[in-house]
C-alpha cells in the first residue's frame, strides 16, 4: 500500500515537472518581425536581414533551446533552435532576436529559412515539433521599407492560433482597437531586442499623483480592503468559535450522560445508612463522598443494595495504636 502511494506521488511529481516546463515554454511570444530590413538593425556579420523577436512574458528565465521556428504551416520543424548555447535562455520580460537569413551555419540565432516579401506566417513551436506556442499571420505588403509588425504592448494580445488567450481587456485600452484587432500593428518605431512600448510604471505613478493628489482615494480604498480582509476573518472565526463552543457543550453533555449511565447507583436518590452518634458531621460528609466515588468507580466495596450506601464500623488496624506499634527488639540472653 505504502509502495503504491509512493508511486502515485512520484507520478504526480513527474507530471507536475513536465507541466511546469511546458507552462514556461507557453509563456513565450512572437513579439515583433521585420521582413524587409533596408536600413535597420545590423547583425554581427555586418548584414541587414529580416528578423523575428521572441518575448518571455513569464517571471522566470526560460530556455528556448530545442524549440522550432518556421514560416511554413506544413513544416513546423524548419529551424530547430540549437541546444548548448547559454544565450538561448531568455530572462523574465526580456527579448531574443533571430535573424531569418537562411544561414544557420552562422550561429544559433541565424535560421535556416528566409523571411521575405512572400512570407505570410511565422510559427514558434514547442520542443516536440507539434504544439504551436505562438503563431502570427501578416500582410508583407504593409511591411515594406523596413517597417516592423509587432505587438503594441510586449507579449500582450492574441495570436491567430486557436486556443491562445486574447487579452482583449488590455487591447481594448488601445485607441486603435477595432473589432477583430488582436493587439498587433505596424509599429511606428522598429525596436529589435527591446520593448515595443515604454513601461508605463512612471506614468502610473504620475497618474496616481494627478488623480489622487491628497491620497484620499488611496486611503479610503486601502482601508476598505484592510477592514474587509479582517472583517471576513472576524465573521469566519465567530462562526468557528460558535461551532466549537457548541461542539464542546455537546461533548460535555455526552460525557456526563455516559458517566451517569455507567454509575450503578442513582445518586439523586441515594439512601445513606450511618451508625448514629459516633461521628461528626464532617466525618459523615467525607465518608459519603468517598463512598459515592468508590461506587461510581464500580469497586464493589460497599454492599450491593441498589441506591443504598451502607457504612459499617470496621476495626481497621490503622486506627489501632497497639497494632501499628512496632515491637521492641527482643534480646535473647
Amino acid at each position, binding site marked *: 500500500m505504502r509502495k503504491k502511494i509512493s508511486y502515485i506521488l512520484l507520478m504526480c511529481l513527474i507530471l507536475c515537472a513536465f507541466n511546469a516546463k511546458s507552462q514556461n515554454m507557453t509563456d513565450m511570444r512572437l513579439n515583433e518581425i521585420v521582413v524587409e530590413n533596408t536600413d535597420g538593425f545590423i547583425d554581427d556579420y555586418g548584414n541587414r536581414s529580416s528578423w523575428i523577436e521572441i518575448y518571455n512574458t513569464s517571471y522566470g528565465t526560460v530556455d528556448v533551446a530545442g524549440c522550432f521556428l518556421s514560416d511554413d504551416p506544413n513544416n513546423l520543424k524548419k529551424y530547430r533552435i540549437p541546444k548548448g548555447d547559454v544565450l538561448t535562455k531568455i530572462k523574465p520580460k526580456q527579448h531574443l532576436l533571430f535573424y531569418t537569413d537562411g544561414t544557420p551555419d552562422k550561429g544559433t540565432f541565424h535560421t535556416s529559412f528566409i523571411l521575405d516579401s512572400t512570407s505570410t506566417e511565422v510559427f514558434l513551436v514547442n520542443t516536440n515539433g507539434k504544439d504551436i506556442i505562438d503563431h502570427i499571420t501578416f500582410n508583407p505588403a504593409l511591411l515594406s521599407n523596413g517597417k516592423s509588425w509587432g505587438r503594441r504592448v510586449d507579449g500582450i494580445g492574441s495570436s491567430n492560433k486557436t486556443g491562445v488567450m486574447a487579452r482583449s481587456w488590455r487591447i481594448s485600452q488601445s485607441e486603435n482597437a477595432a473589432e477583430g484587432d488582436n493587439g498587433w500593428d505596424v509599429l511606428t518605431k522598429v525596436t529589435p531586442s527591446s520593448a515595443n512600448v515604454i513601461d508605463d510604471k512612471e506614468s502610473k505613478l504620475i497618474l496616481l499623483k494627478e488623480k489622487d493628489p491628497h491620497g*484620499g482615494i488611496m486611503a479610503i480604498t486601502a482601508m476598505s480592503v484592510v477592514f474587509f480582509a*479582517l472583517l471576513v476573518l472576524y465573521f469566519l472565526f465567530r462562526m468557528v468559535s460558535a461551532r466549537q463552543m457548541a461542539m*464542546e457543550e455537546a461533548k460535555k453533555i455526552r460525557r456526563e450522560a455516559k458517566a451517569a449511565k455507567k454509575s450503578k447507583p442513582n445518586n439523586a436518590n441515594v439512601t445513606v445508612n450511618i451508625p448514629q452518634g459516633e461521628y461528626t458531621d464532617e466525618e459523615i460528609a467525607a465518608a459519603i463522598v468517598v463512598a459515592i466515588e468508590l461506587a461510581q468507580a464500580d469497586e464493589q466495596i460497599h454492599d450491593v443494595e441498589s441506591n443504598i450506601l451502607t457504612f459499617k464500623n470496621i476495626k481497621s488496624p490503622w486506627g489501632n495504636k497497639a497494632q501499628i506499634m512496632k515491637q521492641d527488639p527482643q534480646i535473647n540472653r
Partner: protein
Amino acid sequence: MILIGLVFIYLAVTKDWEPMLLVPIGFGIIVGNIPLFPGLQVGIYEEGSVLNILYQGVQKGFYPPLIFLGIGAMTDFSALISNPKLLLIGAAAQFGIFGAYAIALAMGFNPNEAGAIGIIGGADGPTAIFLSSRLAPDLMGAIAVSAYSYMALVPVIQPPIMKLLTSKKERLIRMKKPRTVSPTEKKIFPIVGFLLTAFIVPSGLPLLGMLFFGNLLKESGVTKRLANTASGPLIDIVTILIGITVGCSTQADKFLQMKSVGIFILGAISFCIATFAGVLFVKIFNLFLKDENKINPLIGNAGVSAVPDSARVSHNIGLQYDKTNYLLMHAMGPNVAGVIGSAVAAGILLGFLS
C-alpha cells in the same frame, strides 16, 4: 553619523530601548560610515563585498519574511480567536499608515515614497524594511531607523493620547474573561487566516505566508523543533543581519538630508494617528455593544502592531486606574491583529505603487 550610531547604542544600553535592534543598527551605522578607499571591496555598496552580500537580504527583501516566520512561531493568537471582534481594532489602527501617506503627499513626497514612509505607522520594522526596499530604496535607511526608534518610544507616545481620548469611567471597564481556545481552533486559524488574507491581498503573500506558516509550526504540535528554530535561533540570526546591514546602509550622504527629517516627523505623526484611530474606534464600537461585552478603549492603542510593547502600555495604563484590571491578555488580541493588518496594508501599498 557615527555620533548618531553611538547615541543609538547609548539609548539601547542605558535606557533599554529596543536593545535587540538599536545595538545592531547603531553599530551598523558606525561601520557604514567609516571612510574607505573605493575599490577595496569592503563597503556595503561595493558589489561582492561581504557586507554587500549580507545586504542582499534587505535589498531583495528576504530578511523581513524570515522575521515574520519567527514572529508567527512566537505568537499566540488565542486572545484574538477567543474574541474575534478585536481583529477590527487591528484594522482601525492602520489609519496611521494612510494618514501619514496623505500628509507625506502634501509635503511633496512622491506616491511611492509616501507609501514607504506611511508604513512606519504600522509599527512593524520588518514590514517597513520590506516595503521601503521595494518602493523607495533610497529612503530605506531613514525609514527603518525611524520605525524602530518610534517602536522603542511607544511607552512615551501613546499614553497621553489614550488618556486624552478616554474618560475615567471608560478606563475602568472590565472586559469579559476570554474563553479557553481549543487546540483545533488554534490549528485552523493560521490556515484559514492565510487563505483569506492572501486571496484578498496577494501582494502581501511573502509576509502573510510566513507569518501564518510560522504560527502553524507552533500550533500544529508536531513540528516543535521547527517552531523552536524559527522563533529562536533563526529570528535572532536574521535580526542581527537586518540590524547591522540596515545600519550600514545609512551613510551620511544619503541619510543627513532634509528628507530624513521629514521622515522622522511623519513617523511620529503616523504613530499618533494610529493610536488615535485605534482608541477612537473602540469608543465608537462600544456604542453598539451590550454592557457585558464592552471593550476597554485603553486597548485601542494596541492595534499598533509593536508587539508586545503597545499591549503592555494598555495594561500599565489600565492598572493606574484599577489595580485589579488586567488588560494585557485582552490587548494582545488587537496587537497581533495589528501585525496581520499592517502586513495586509503593506501588500495593498505594494500592489498600488510598485
